[in-house]
């Protein structure tokens, strides 16, 4: 599990905190989405978890071990793919990369080779294991990076933008792998991503950061449900767009989107439509998706969870 307690990072005197008093508790086997706009403090938090940055105050524990005080034990319990970096050596083969990083993580040579064979086979890279990673496609390179993060079979995995720049096929493989890790191996997976559809699909729980602070930390379903009061409705009527309404007509049916503050207002809208002679075909409550929730959270001064 991952425990973060009042974690704060200030880069210099007089500067606003990059991470401000963030506390999180992520149980084992959870796929946790860590979201936020650029500059929100996600990567700084990930770097502090990974032992690459020292917190100004607060503490982070990985698998029960303090990253600052019990660094060696904490480092042995996680693997990471960092965003915006190569993560692996392009001039080495996939096999050589895995053998190197496995040994750095403290695995014996035989165990490293065994894990490397399993991972490369699972990720569909076994046939290309002796090719230099520099000659791989972006998706294949990302798969090698993920294999490196998993080489020591860690109970905790940090993935910073794991599907960024990947094609549909590679994205699907990575998503399947993440789900499998959490469900079958009880691995705690922390992912940061700007691809909110990916987060919504994968994450059991989501936290949203804004200007260094957490503004939400809830199970994904609860977070989405919490925004239902701002629901949108979709009204479908037969024929053309009734006067006074905006809608899209396709194959003789007009779809009108309605956003209401109070659900009772929907009845007024329906009455107005009927008064126009419109024949109602359906009325559907449009559920907010994670993108709606995310935008609401990062653009408003709200706090959830």
């Amino acid at each position, binding site marked *: 599990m991952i425990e973060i307690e009042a974690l704060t990072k200030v*880069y*210099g005197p007089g500067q606003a905190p990059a991470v401000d008093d963030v506390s999180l508790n992520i149980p084992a086997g959870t796929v946790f989405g860590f979201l936020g706009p650029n500059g929100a403090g996600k990567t700084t938090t990930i*770097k502090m978890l*990974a*032992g*690459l*940055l*020292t917190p100004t105050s607060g503490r982070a524990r990985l698998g029960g071990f303090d990253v600052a005080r019990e*660094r*060696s*034990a904490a*480092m*042995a319990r*996680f*693997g*990471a793919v*960092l965003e*915006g*970096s*190569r*993560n*692996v*050596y392009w*001039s*080495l083969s996939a096999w*050589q990369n895995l*053998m*190197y*990083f496995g*040994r*750095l*993580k*403290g695995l*014996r*040579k035989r165990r490293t080779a065994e894990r490397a064979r399993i991972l490369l086979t699972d990720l569909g890279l076994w046939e290309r294991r002796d090719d*230099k990673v520099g000659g791989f496609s972006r998706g294949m390179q990302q798969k090698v990076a993920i294999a*490196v993060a998993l080489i020591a079979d860690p109970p905790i995995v940090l993935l910073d933008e794991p599907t960024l720049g990947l094609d549909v096929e590679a994205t699907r493989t990575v998503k399947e792998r993440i789900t499998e890790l959490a469900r079958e191996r009880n691995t705690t997976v922390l992912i940061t991503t700007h691809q909110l559809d990916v987060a919504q699909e994968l994450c059991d729980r989501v936290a949203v950061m804004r200007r260094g602070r957490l503004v939400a930390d809830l199970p994904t379903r609860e977070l989405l449900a919490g925004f239902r009061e701002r629901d949108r409705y979709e009204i479908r009527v037969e024929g053309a767009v009734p006067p006074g309404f905006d809608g899209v007509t396709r194959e003789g049916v007009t779809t009108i989107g309605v956003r209401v503050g109070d659900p009772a207002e929907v009845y007024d809208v329906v009455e107005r439509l009927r008064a126009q002679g419109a024949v109602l075909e359906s009325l559907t409550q449009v559920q907010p998706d994670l993108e709606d929730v995310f935008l609401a959270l990062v653009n408003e001064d709200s706090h959830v969870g």
Partner: protein
Amino acid sequence: MSADVLRAEIGKGLRVQLAHPAGHVITLLISTMMYLGLQFVLGQGELRRDLLPQTLVAIGGYWFLQYAGLVMVADLIEEKRAGTFAQAQMTPAPPWLPMLGRLITAAVFGLAVAAVASLVPMLVAGIAIPPRWEALMPAALLGVNVLAFTFLLASLALVSPMIGALQSLFTSLILLLNGSFLPLSLYPDWLAVVARILPTTLGVEALTQTLFEERTLAEIWRGGTLPWLLLHTLALTVVSGLLFVRNHRRALQEPS
């Protein structure tokens, strides 16, 4: 675990260097041709056989420094930029251990290149370097001197990628002044003093005194070269170690 990490780091470092061997072969050829060419020009149209052995020892020291620096400093800057350095830092091993692995890789690679590069002029120009047991200690100190300086630059590179420019400046100065073009004994006194401050110069001086002037270690100790070399090497080692500890801590405080 420490031995495993060291072996992994050295193996990786050597594989990365040998991934593009053609580049090293070309650089080696250019280096040896440049050395012989410059000696030909300085000898006003001929190779001065009386000066070649001494200058070859000096440029051998320079080549060692240049290639060790390539592994230790240039690659570290590139890895910091690319992200592999951060990935390699996330190990249960203490942070100095992968750095030590890099240093050993730098020593092995630098020594191999310097040996091959020196062999070419020896064969082409028939330069003979007499083997002497007394030369072992100055040679070892020269090696430690070079590696301590390389580690110092690498420690600076932990917090400043701009260190590449400083490295270029120092390696150029060392090439100019350590005796690679002319033996130190032919320099004006003030320039010899300046040259001795730079890494490699004192090591080259001690080495040439034992090899070509057939002096004993006691004699070069009394002459002052050996104590200064020891002091210089010790100072570089201590400073580079302290700088590594300080800059590693600093690198964890702020991104560079």
